[in-house]
C-alpha cells in the first residue's frame, strides 16, 4: 500500500482525511484507485486531456513525477505520493 497525501482543498472529497493508504503499482494506478474510492477527485487532478492540471504537483517521496516517468512512475511499498497545489494567493 502507498501512503497518499491529499491537499486541503480536496479533503472534503475524502471525508476530511489528509492521508490515505491506496493500492497501486504506478502513480496512474494510484490516481485511478483514488478516483474510484472518492468519485470526482480524479477530475480535480487531471485536465480534459488526462494530464495533471497545470497548478498541481505530484511528488513521489521528494521528487516531482515530471522528473521521474510522469504518471507511469513505478511505486514500491513504503513510497509516499504527495498531491500538492502550487503556491497561489491574492490581494
Amino acid at each position, binding site marked *: 500500500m502507498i501512503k497518499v*497525501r491529499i*491537499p*486541503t*482543498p480536496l479533503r472534503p472529497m475524502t471525508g476530511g482525511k*489528509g492521508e490515505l493508504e491506496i493500492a497501486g503499482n504506478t502513480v496512474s494506478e494510484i490516481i485511478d484507485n483514488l478516483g474510484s474510492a472518492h468519485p470526482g477527485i480524479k*477530475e*480535480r487532478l487531471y485536465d480534459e486531456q488526462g494530464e*495533471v*492540471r*497545470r*497548478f*498541481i*504537483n505530484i*511528488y513521489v517521496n*521528494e521528487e*516531482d513525477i*515530471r*522528473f521521474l516517468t510522469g504518471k507511469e512512475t513505478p511505486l514500491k511499498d513504503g513510497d*509516499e505520493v*504527495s498531491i*500538492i*497545489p*502550487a*503556491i*497561489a*494567493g*491574492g*490581494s
Partner: protein
Amino acid sequence: MLNIPSGIIQSMIEHARELAPHECCGILSGNEGTIAEYYRITNILANMSEQELTRFDGAKLSDLQRLSPEERADIAFQMDAREMAMAQRDIRSKGLALLGFYHSHTFSPARPSQTDITIAMEFESYRAKLNFPEPVHLIVSLEHADQPVVRAYQIQEARATEIPIRTLP
C-alpha cells in the same frame, strides 16, 4: 533579517510593472537568509477554468467568479506547477535552497491578504514532509505606482510577521 541584492529587488519590481494590472509571481533561492537568485513563474490564473478555481477559499472564490478570466489575474495569482518544479530542480542543482515566494499586489498594500495567509498555511502543512525549508513571502506593492514597496513576511499559525529586508549592493 532577509538579505536581498538590490538587483533582485529591482527585477521583482520590473516583473510586477510588466504584468500590471495582473499580479506577477515567482520564487526566490539562496542560502542562510540571503537571496541569491529569483525565478519568474507564470501566473496561470487567467487561463484557468471556473472548475479549477475551487482551490481558493470562500470569499476570494466568490470575488473571482464574478470577474472575467482576465480580470481574475488582477486580484490573485496561481503559479504554474511545472515551472515551479523546474525552478526547484534548478535550485537544488546549484546547491541552493528555496527561500521564498514573491508576488505583486497591483492595487493594494504590501501585506499578505487573507487568501495569501490561508494558502501559505496550506503549504506549511505539506512542506516539512517534503523537506522544504520554511519560506519567506515577499510582496511587491504597486499601489502607488511611482513608489513601489517590497516587504517580506513569515507566515506562521495564520499570522504574518514582517521580516526586515537588508538591501545588498
